[in-house]
């Protein structure tokens, strides 16, 4: 059978590595190390502005500042399966560097004049003292308070203690915290995402945030690794329903392939395909009654939360995509929905590939194929259907 002294049917019987070890491996490759050291720590990774919507529904402009940091403390010890942020960090960033980056962003956008909102992303948690010096946390909180900007910061759950939030709100009275929950399911958090916290942590963090009247933005992941399209759709809708009442905003991130991640490895081995855009449309359709029970759209009466889906690399093979013919229309409709909250955005959308998507989802529900049956969606249809 096998020619080794094996206790298993295949392989040498050696103990299996943990997901954790697999996640970390790419970050230690020479190319990743070299890339990390190539960054200028005194400049942020990127600063840009986009149209946004204020908490009260008013359209506005938001500056996004992505800082070059030491990364996420969870990454230091383990890491999420899909996370490629290690590509943008370096481990010797100092308090002075961060202040220099912040100054760069403020200077570039003239103290954010004309922009009502500032989003500060750190490839980790802004309020985590091990990642971000407290002095810099204070600078960001205070500057935005002083400048009168609506601030959004990212954080994992474990930092959002009453003590920390009391401190933060003593400096800035109006900010929102975006939490990368990814899935409201402990099995998925553990196995598919390797998130390092449970839904209880999120429940506790959200309760604390509510206590201090801090707005909650919840990120959910659509189609994490090791999950098929059908499960992603079914459970994605359920997670939205689970968190809607307690989230001011729900941002669903369809999986895209970031370099050096596990998902990149799977994608290269034809073991993972990013979600269909049709799945995102279907997810929105199914979740819409939960978000807008009275079907009034964003800002309308009875709105429970705001659902945002932004397909990063949408329409590309490394992002959520369809057959190639309809992608731009579907991506545009999904993005329009994020603004309007109206299902009419999807009216008239149709493509031959929708049938293939629907059949794939139906089959994945029926088959014992947890990794899915997805085929290439582009190119010659006969070639895609040939015997695998």
């Amino acid at each position, binding site marked *: *059978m*096998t020619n080794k002294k094996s*206790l*298993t*049917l*295949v*392989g040498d*019987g050696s*103990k*299996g*590595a*943990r*997901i954790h*070890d*697999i996640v970390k491996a790419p970050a230690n490759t020479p190319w990743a190390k070299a890339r990390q050291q190539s960054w200028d720590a005194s400049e942020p990774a990127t600063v840009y502005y986009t149209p946004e919507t204020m908490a009260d529904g008013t359209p506005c402009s938001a500056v996004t500042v992505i800082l070059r940091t030491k990364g996420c403390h969870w990454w230091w010890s383990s890491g999420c399966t899909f996370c490629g942020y290690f590509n943008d960090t370096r481990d010797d960033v100092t308090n002075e560097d961060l202040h220099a980056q912040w100054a760069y962003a403020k200077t570039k956008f003239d103290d954010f004049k004309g922009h009502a909102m500032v989003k500060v992303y750190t490839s980790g948690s802004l309020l985590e003292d091990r990642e971000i010096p407290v002095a810099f946390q204070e600078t960001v909180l205070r500057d935005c308070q002083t400048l009168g900007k609506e601030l959004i910061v990212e954080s994992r759950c474990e930092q959002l203690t009453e003590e920390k939030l009391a401190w933060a709100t003593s400096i800035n009275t109006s900010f929102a915290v975006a939490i990368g929950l990814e899935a409201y*399911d402990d*099995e*998925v958090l553990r*196995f598919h995402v390797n998130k390092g916290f449970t839904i209880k942590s999120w429940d506790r963090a959200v309760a604390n945030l509510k206590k201090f009247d801090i707005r909650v933005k919840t990120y959910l992941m659509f189609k994490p690794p*090791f*999950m098929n399209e059908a*499960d992603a759709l*079914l*459970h994605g809708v359920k997670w939205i329903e689970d968190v809607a009442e307690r989230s001011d905003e729900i941002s669903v991130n369809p999986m895209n392939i970031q370099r050096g991640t*596990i998902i990149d*490895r*799977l994608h290269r*081995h*034809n*073991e*993972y395909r990013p979600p269909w855009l049709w799945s995102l449309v279907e997810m929105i359709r199914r979740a819409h009654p939960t978000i807008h029970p009275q079907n009034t759209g964003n800002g309308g009466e009875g709105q429970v939360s705001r659902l945002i889906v932004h397909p990063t690399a949408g329409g590309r093979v490394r992002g959520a995509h369809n057959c190639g013919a309809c992608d731009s229309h579907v991506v545009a409709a999904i993005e329009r929905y994020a603004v309007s909250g109206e299902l009419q955005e999807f009216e008239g959308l149709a493509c*031959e590939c929708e*049938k*293939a998507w*629907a*059949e*794939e989802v*139906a*089959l994945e*529900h*029926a*088959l*014992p*194929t*947890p*990794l*899915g*049956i997805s*085929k290439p969606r582009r190119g010659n*249809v*006969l070639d*895609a*259907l*040939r*015997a*695998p």
Partner: protein
Amino acid sequence: MGEGLGRSVLARHRFARMWGLGDRKNPQAYTPALILLEGDPEVDATLAPFTSTSTTAIPSTLTLNGRLPLCPPNFETIGPSYEVSVGHVLPPSLEEADAGEAAGTSQLLPVSWQRLNHDDSLMDPELLPDVVVLVDALQLAAQPGRLVEAITVLKRRFPGALLWTPGLGGPDNVALLTWFGVDLFDLSRSRQAAAAGVLLTAQGPRHCVPTMGEDASMDKQVQHWESSIAEVRAAMVSDQMRALVDRQSLNSARSVEHLRRHDALCATVDGLLTSHVARTHSFPCHSASIQTDPLITDWEAFMSEAYQAPDGLDTILVLLPCSARKPYRLSKSHGRFIRAIGTSACHEVMVTSPLGLVPRDLEEVWPAAHYDVPVTGDWTGDEEARIVRMFARLVDRHQYKRIINHSGMALEHPSIPIVDTRQGQGAGSHDALERLTEAVRAAVDEFSARGRKNERMLLDTFASVARKNMSSDEWVTDLKVRGKPPRYRLEANGKQVALWSIDRGGFSLSKAVVTTLADTKALPEVHLKEGVTWKGDIFGAIVDSFDPAIRNGADLLVYQAGKVLGLARAHAPGWEWPTTPGRLAKSHQRL
């Protein structure tokens, strides 16, 4: 746990089997068979004897239900019914990682590449599932060699189980997958084809032809399944699976790749091939891919490493072309060659494809007496390379002093003179035959080679066959040959010990020779459990140990408590022993 699945093998060829499901005396359904999923069209239960569902939980729970009364012992109620957790599954490329949470274990056994790598509970000898499900078969198919490795490992570990590779099979690869050992299939690829408006046929996916009234409906897709499954079952019964698989593999590049890798893998598997076949069995070698068939590899390995020319016959080697008719000597062309040679003092060896070299003394055995190859007069690179390799090994391992080459293929040897009797002419041409006669006569005179009497020739042939198909020829040495061709009797001290059976190209051994065969360890051994009474045929339940290299059709020595009891003839190759339900060997002689 379900009530169990009644099943018995009705036809087999290497890893391919046609199972009868239910009562073995009156099977309710046969494999290859379909498993129906939610959303599938209605298909008759005799073709689709199972349904399957999966829950939406993460991880999901899989159920498999019989649609016919398939459960022993009474076969009265519909069943079986299985349920098991699929568990978390990591993709095959992450083989070094372990999800740390194995799938469930029951008579329905879900496995993945990760589980094969990391779950030692699969080695539990008590684990005897009825149905194995390879849940990441689709992902494995995308990794070089992994699919066939996983399937082969599963077949050898669980020979008594049916195998399902969900999402992988279609009318265009059902024969290929059956060849690998997959028994159960689903309509998922046909449903995907229907959704794309395409027909999935036995020749692969294609657009519908409206002028033929075709459409891509599931009714039409199922018709293609029925037709493909019928082809497989027919080929199983007529032993023509390899030819069907060769044809079907051309449907996709992946299928060709899987078949080649499977061939290479099987060449390393003992107890897979057949040792004897019926006289009527043919071995079509019409495609180029036959060059990689394990049977060919096996023949080359035997000829290169184990074959010994009859004693004293390795002075003059005469290389001859093959003939369409088998055995060669019955062909007109070989009649002329034999007359031209005019002596039994030479070792005649045929140059051929795909077997490379076939000595006259083995021309009646499998596969030499059964292959059929198209003759173009040209050799491919693979064919030529094999012949050159085998020729070099044959000459190295014998003491030839002269080589007379009437084969037409240019062959060289650094130290032994080779006489080319063809000189560009046809093998049957008058001049070439004259040169053959002259070359033989000259060599016989030069080396004083002596012809053999007819009985000596026959004994040499029988000894050679014994060396090929048994572990020893010692039992043949002092026998006398009696009777008229082709039904020769082999006798010792006036007592018949064996008959030459032209029906199976081998010996039919008598009771009188059993002890001698045991003393000379001439046959693979099967040891029965102590305490059981050997009444009928040999079933797994009474087997204590066995030679894993048993080939289908081989004669076996049956022992119990160290004492030889008799002979049996293998109905299943070694890989299927001992847990395949049904008869493994048929009793043949009892002391």
